[in-house]
């Protein structure tokens, strides 16, 4: 644990791991969806090529400083969040700064990026971007509530607000929280597709109506940064779920298995779903997920 050099090396390794895993997951998603649609689909490393290609675009345009900073905010958020999440339960490289943040902090730092992204999208002046932002923020209010309820239920039940603390409790008890607090898990699980913004909750991007929404004016290096950030963030979200509900992971293989299993859930749901309208999405989140969230809270408190 000692040594600033190890710390930096660990941070870099974690980021690289998150990037790689996230990219492959996105590739798998494309492949899986293709197979479901009876297509061959792109190779699983396709997303690396996409990012590389976008990065090697010779020109890029922006509409001002906020648009320039927007991808930056996103990737800063993803990487910083990653720093505060225990990727593996213990180990030299993959725990990073997780002792100096807690769940509430994570919740808040996770909106840092979208807010910056929204500002950048706003500056482009493209109406599609603004509409996308409006939808995205609305949807966020929708899914955050059941998700937060689940988290608060855990925190109240186990009297700790830190992820590390919750991990320790799981390894002490020997059960995962998805079994010891099933209601919270269900609420969190129901809110999860909203977080991933896959169908039926892909109302932000919605290529068919909004021309990809907030990112419609981003190209080249900006878009590549955003895709990188997106893959890291997907990994972050999955790891957080695994840490909270599935007992974390003590080695990378376990981590990959658990996160991949979890990842299949929004992917498969999305593969066979059409798209909600914004208000339908919010109503969905404020329906059953909210009910399970309440149930979880009551279960936790009494």
């Amino acid at each position, binding site marked *: 644990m000692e040594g600033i050099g190890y710390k930096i090396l660990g941070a870099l390794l974690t980021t690289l791991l998150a990037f790689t895993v996230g990219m492959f997951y996105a590739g798998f998603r494309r492949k899986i969806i293709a197979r479901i649609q009876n297509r061959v689909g792109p190779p699983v490393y396709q997303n690396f090529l996409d990012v590389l290609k976008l990065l090697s675009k010779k020109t890029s345009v922006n509409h001002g400083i906020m648009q320039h900073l927007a991808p930056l905010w996103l990737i800063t958020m993803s990487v910083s969040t990653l720093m505060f999440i225990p990727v593996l339960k213990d180990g030299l490289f993959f725990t990073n700064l997780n002792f100096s943040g807690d769940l509430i902090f994570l919740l*808040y730092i996770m909106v840092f990026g979208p807010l910056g992204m929204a500002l950048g999208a706003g500056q482009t002046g493209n109406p599609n971007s603004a509409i996308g932002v409006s939808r995205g923020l609305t949807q966020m209010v929708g899914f955050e509530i059941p998700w937060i309820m689940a988290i608060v239920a855990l925190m109240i039940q186990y*009297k700790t607000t830190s992820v590390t603390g919750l991990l320790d409790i799981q390894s002490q008890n020997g059960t995962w929280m998805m079994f010891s607090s099933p209601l919270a898990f269900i609420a969190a699980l129901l809110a999860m597709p909203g977080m991933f913004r896959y169908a039926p909750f892909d109302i932000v991007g919605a290529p068919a109506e909004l021309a990809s929404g907030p990112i419609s004016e981003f190209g080249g290096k900006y878009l590549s*940064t955003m895709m990188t950030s997106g893959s890291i963030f997907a990994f972050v979200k999955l790891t957080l779920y695994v840490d909270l509900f599935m007992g974390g992971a003590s080695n990378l293989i376990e981590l990959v298995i658990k996160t991949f299993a979890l990842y299949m859930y929004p992917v498969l749901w999305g593969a066979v779903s059409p798209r909600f*309208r914004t*208000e339908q999405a919010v109503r969905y989140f404020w329906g059953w997920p909210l009910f399970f969230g309440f149930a979880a809270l009551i279960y936790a408190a009494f």
Partner: protein
Amino acid sequence: MSSLVILILIIAGFALLSYFGHSINKTAGNIAVFAAAVLIPLYWFTRVDFSETVSFTISGFQMELGYNMYGKLFSLIVMILSPLALIYALGYMKDSKRTGTFYFSFLFSILGMTGILMSRDFISLFIFWEIMTWSSYLLVIFLGKDVEKTGIRYMVFSALGAYAMFMAIVIIHRNTGSMMLNDYFNAFGNFSTGTKFLTGILLMFGFALKSAVMPVHVWAPGAYSNTPMAYTSVFSGALSKMGVYGLGFVVINLFAHANLHFAGTILAWLGAVTAVLATFSAIFQDDAKKLLAYSSIAQLGYIVTGIGIGTELSIFAGLYLAVLHAAFKGVLFMAAGAVERQAGSTDMTEVTGLIRKMPLTFFASLVAIIALAGVPPLGGFVGKWMLYESLINNGNFLMVIMIFLSSTAAFLYSYKFLFGLFLGQEEPEFENVKEASPLMTIPMLLLSVFLMITGSFPGIVFKYIAEGMTDLGFHDVNWQMSVLTNAWGDSVNLQHVTLSIGVVFVVFLIFLTWKGYKKTYYVSTKDISSSGEVIKPEDNMTYSTDFYKPFERVLHPILKRKIEKYYDEFGEGIGALFDFMRRIYTGNGQTYAFYVIVFLVILLVFSKNIFGY
């Protein structure tokens, strides 16, 4: 003479000086105002003796002035925010008329606030409270908009609050024979239950009204948005904190000590409901000033919740949020004022794309909005974190959810504010808009620097809060310069946060800027992908009307019931009753004579009931 009295006299003197200065000419008046903005805080910081007390007797009532640490904390807000707002006002009010009245009322409201915070007895508290009320009323109606509706509504609600306090005060006097705050707090335990509740709740009502707690918040949106923005920053930032100040000592000193915690809990619930509903209202405002007004109400809701819960961490959070709210809402109202002055409107459906015209204002607003939204690494997060942790530690899980809902929904209006005014397509109409004068931007930037520092080193504020909380009975409050800790021992190290975010940000900033630097082009906001159509300069494609329509559809069942409507209907009903009463005076001499006779007859008939024989 005592330094406290001198302070009061200095402020009053400057008020008169500004008024008369402005009636001579503008320069003289402005010099007086500037001197006030510099000298009043200078005197406060260097010469005021905080251990001093002044007591005197007027009209048989003993009165005493003297700071305690709790009052000093709030004075700090007043003494830092008000001078900045005054300097801002020098720029903002440059072309207005009747500036004399403006600065007179402004300084008098500072006097009122200063006085409230050093009052140790109810009489002087009430006197200064009322001075604050009427001076702010004069500012609310200063622009002459909506005088009948907003002005009267503000005054009526303020009066209701003040008179509730007044009633409590006289009842306290009846029961203790003294007007001193401390005598009341000490005697409170011995009161009968009825008196406990009556006085406590009346005081609480009075203070809660000033801090715009639902359902007595209706004065606030109009009052905040109608006032000249130079004052609104103080109005929302400092003046509403007087209510928080009062709630603090009522809830903690009374209810906690007398084991009436549930009263505090009710207050906390009201605060949470306020936060949620006001946030929802803020989201659908089209006027930036109205949006900020509702947002203020919502933020005050958090603070009130923190105070109402009454644990150490929650009060700490409430007070910290109070300080922070003063700073960021100060900036935001100033920014709205700057936009109003430079671009002529704060209607977010009209004004767009000012970011390149007013970059400093935008930067200050951005920092303030991040702090408001509670996103790390700025100071707002610290307050939010402490509030949540205290609520979770306390097991108030439903309240946590409401606060979370409110602050998540707060992102919506936060974004709308920045987007509506500064982002979006640039319009030829605002081609010639200039950045506001340095008098206006410097106060904003100073406050935003403060917000940035508190993100990593909130300890500079914690110090004063911890001092102040000793007067609420919380001794030895633990605080560290940049580590937050909750009751369960979980902590957040803010320096690590800032460092991590900062390093990642800088690394990627360098990368993103350096990569293809020469081949990165700036294009105008009219150059967007719009199916190949060329957008003419006069076409504005910015999406700003009905910005959150889907969300509005979701919330329609909640929002369609407006509490204002009930008040209005109540008002109409009362008006009809008054009209009926007015009919008694028919204007007919015979009728009046008839009344006299009837009255006499009634008295004679019932004389046995009246006199007993």
